[in-house]
């Protein structure tokens, strides 16, 4: 084995942000060697981003803090170096692909680091072209950021840190804002750069299954500021650490566990294509034979009907001849790539924009006669980012705003607000300032501010975007309860196929403004044509079913039914 040179070395390292009284990282000992590809895994608040920021110099140079112990990057002791010195060896691609695009064109953004080093333009041009070529953006040098998709912006960000002597690339939650297909492409690109350019790669993520689409050498699992696992992926997948620390397990691992398989690292669990299934075949077949009570959602009468709706902002239609109907109590996933018309549909259902052709019926009445305000009492819309919705200081004020704006009487308002706050579990904190509560609670507050009008349908835009598994589960269980207990119909606009599988019964798939599928989730997810059109991704269940020789559709349906039973009754009862 060749000598391995360390590129990052943490020794008894701790870091405390100046604004906090407790350290965020405790006693970290970690070595990353040149040429390695390492995944830093952990739930939100586990310190994984803080760790990455200690390597690239944002900590302590941009976010002030106290370091004890030592962290060496390419031989430099970081606390004695500067963010600039570190940026010469460490390239960081941040999570927010939009905000980090500082140039006015692709070429300019890639050149930004070179400009700052006063590289003459003549030398800059070939370097920019080379970097653009590596990430496959050569044809886009003159494009402005508004013309690019999230995935393309991320490629540009990567190209922007690729040149020069950068040895180590850090990707901070690279998948957070991408749809499934773009996410897969990003993982493949990172893998290619790692191999072809001989760079050391650190990926900070909590979406384990998506990252494992391409192999990683090592996984470092963090929890509450400490490293709880540091080793090869197979052993981690065979252990119970993922569940213990709130990381979503890959679906195929879940399926194996449901079938009662004894997992061990010998089966090379990290890759769905090559995992050794031979010891489990019998169990998996037995599991598949098991008769399950078919899950049939209880549905009420039709409350929303969209008939042949076409809409355009100017010339080109954004929605083309869309028809579907929604029954009371349904949970529907609205999926499709960015720009496919999902958010326009949400706006259209709320009456912000109105159909050019066709009709929208709410409880059988054409909604043209209603104002936006009146529609808001029937269909509520919850935005992705709660910070863009919260306008008041106190939770109670936030929730009562919609009632106040409608000039309701004080008694009426108080009653509705109390009821809503109780529904959302916010009653005990009704007088708390909005800024003092957690993200999940903020999300609840925004949902409460919509529910107070007692709409029959709520539309949620990416309700769990950027959330780790624990928060994801918390938000989704809450929404599921609203649906179960109060019969509220929910439309989820989402990229997350796990969410669609676990929490919805039906999927509306959009592509280029057309509704290309309106079917049960398991049928949509086993339809290749629909998956390609909508930039979705085959789940690993599909691959697993294929490898086992099962019909994917039946297999995914069986998995969903089993999962629902486990969620409602627990695993023992399900068996």
């Amino acid at each position, binding site marked *: 084995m060749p000598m391995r040179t360390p590129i990052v070395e943490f020794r008894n390292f701790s870091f405390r942000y100046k604004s906090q009284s407790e350290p965020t990282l405790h006693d970290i000992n970690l070595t990353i060697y040149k040429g390695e590809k390492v995944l830093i895994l952990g739930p939100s608040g586990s310190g994984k981003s803080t760790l990455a920021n200690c390597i*690239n*110099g*944002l900590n302590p*140079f*941009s976010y002030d803090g106290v370091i004890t112990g030592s962290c060496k990057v390419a031989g430099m002791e970081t606390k004695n170096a500067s*963010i*600039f010195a570190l*940026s010469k060896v460490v*390239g*960081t691609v941040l999570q*927010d692909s939009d*905000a*980090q695009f*500082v*140039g*006015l*064109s692709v070429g*300019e953004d890639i*050149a*930004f*680091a*070179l*400009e*700052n*080093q*006063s*590289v003459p*333009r*003549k030398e*800059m041009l070939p370097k920019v072209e080379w970097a653009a070529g590596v990430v496959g953006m050569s044809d886009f040098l003159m*494009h*402005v950021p*508004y013309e690019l998709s999230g995935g393309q912006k991320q490629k540009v*960000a990567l190209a922007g840190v690729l040149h020069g002597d950068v040895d180590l690339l850090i990707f901070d939650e690279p998948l957070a804002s991408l749809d499934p297909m773009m996410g897969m492409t990003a993982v493949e690109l990172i893998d290619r750069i790692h191999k072809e350019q001989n760079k050391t790669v650190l990926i900070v993520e909590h979406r384990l299954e998506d990252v494992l689409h391409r192999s990683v050498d090592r996984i470092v699992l963090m929890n509450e500021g400490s490293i709880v696992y540091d080793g090869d992926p197979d052993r981690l997948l065979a252990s119970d650490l993922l569940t213990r620390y709130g990381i979503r397990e890959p679906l195929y691992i879940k399926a194996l566990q449901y079938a009662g398989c004894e997992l061990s690292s010998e089966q090379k669990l990290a890759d769905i294509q090559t995992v050794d299934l031979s010891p489990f075949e019998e169990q998996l077949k037995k599991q598949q034979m098991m008769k399950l009570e078919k899950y049939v959602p209880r549905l009420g009468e039709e409350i929303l009907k969209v008939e042949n709706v076409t809409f355009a*902002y100017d010339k080109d239609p954004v929605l083309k001849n869309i028809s579907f109907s929604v029954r009371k109590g349904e949970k529907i996933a609205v999926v499709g790539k960015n720009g496919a018309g999902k958010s326009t549909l949400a*706006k259209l259902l*709320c*009456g*912000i924009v109105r159909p050019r052709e066709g009709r929208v019926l709410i409880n059988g009445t054409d909604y043209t006669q209603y*104002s*936006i*305000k009146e*529609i*808001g009492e029937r269909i*509520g*819309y*919850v*935005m992705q980012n709660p*910070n*863009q*919705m*919260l*306008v008041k200081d106190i939770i109670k004020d936030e929730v009562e*705003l*919609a009632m106040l*704006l*409608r000039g309701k009487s004080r008694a009426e308002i108080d009653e509705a607000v109390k009821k809503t706050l109780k529904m959302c579990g916010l009653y005990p904190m009704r007088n708390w300032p909005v800024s003092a509560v957690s993200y999940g609670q903020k999300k609840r507050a925004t949902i409460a*501010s*919509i529910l107070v*009008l007692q709409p029959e349908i709520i539309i949620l835009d990416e309700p769990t975007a950027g959330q780790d598994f624990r928060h994801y589960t918390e938000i989704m269980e809450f929404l599921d309860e609203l649906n179960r207990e109060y019969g509220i119909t929910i439309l989820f606009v989402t990229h997350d196929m796990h969410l669609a599988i676990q929490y919805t019964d039906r999927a509306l798939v959009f592509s280029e403004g057309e509704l290309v599928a309106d079917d049960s989730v398991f049928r949509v997810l086993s339809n290749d044509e629909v998956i390609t059109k909508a930039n979705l991704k085959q789940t690993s269940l599909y691959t697993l079913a294929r490898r086992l020789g099962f019909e994917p559709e039946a297999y995914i349906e069986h998995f969903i039914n089993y999962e629902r039973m486990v969620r409602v009754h627990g695993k023992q009862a399900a068996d």
Partner: protein
Amino acid sequence: MENKLLINLIPGDTFLHRLTGKTKVRTFIVLLIYLIMSFDLRLILPLFILGIIGLKSLKPAWKTLKYFFIIIVAVNLLNIVLFWLADPDIGAYWCGGDNTVLFKLTDRFYLTAETFWYLMVRFIKMITSFMVSVVFILSITPSELAAGLYSIKVPYKICTIFSLAFRYIPDIGRDFQNIKVSLQTRGVELDPKKASLKDRLKQNVLILIPLIISSFDRVANISNAMDLRGYGRGKTRTYYSEHEELKADKAFKVIYVALLLFCAYWIITHNTMPQDFRMWYPFA
């Protein structure tokens, strides 16, 4: 939909577009000095004509421009009418003391040839400076503007403000739209037919709160992204958008340097001889 502003982010391909930011910024500044220094129609008129030619050569979107022109012409017409109302004899002071009355409304309000001349020159001067500015704005990209300002020794951190502002204005606009939509569904009434102006203003303040908070988040991210790519490290910086000087840039350099010298001469001679305060008036 993103680019409703007149500003180009990607350089166009006409003659003026292809100049470097340095040439554009320097020429513009010299022309402004040239315009401000005098009320001499012999100096202003050539630039007025060149302005029209320059504007046509850029092949702008006339539809959007038209409204700007109408507003500017209207405002300046109002301006000269007010000048006239304030003092019908104002031309005499500029054109050498005579009052040649052309026609008379009342004893107080009459039009003299001198006042007419003065106000006409004033009007042409205003329109010309507007046109020169439009040509400048249409021909330059924000990045070239940053590079051009940097070339006249403006610190690059200030130059960056210009390019960054243009980069993020559309993003903030989009956030604003989103927040507006969500508040409208909650019952905020922004329809002018249904809510009074005062109410609408109040409601718009409601939109500003989340907009400011989400913009702060963005600013933190942007500044991190810039730090991580070494922004602010050196005292100097180069610009990707600033291509090498072409023949046209060199020709422009000769012109603007010559013009600047001429301006210096003009300003010195006209300010050291206070007797010759009058403007050029061919009919004196």
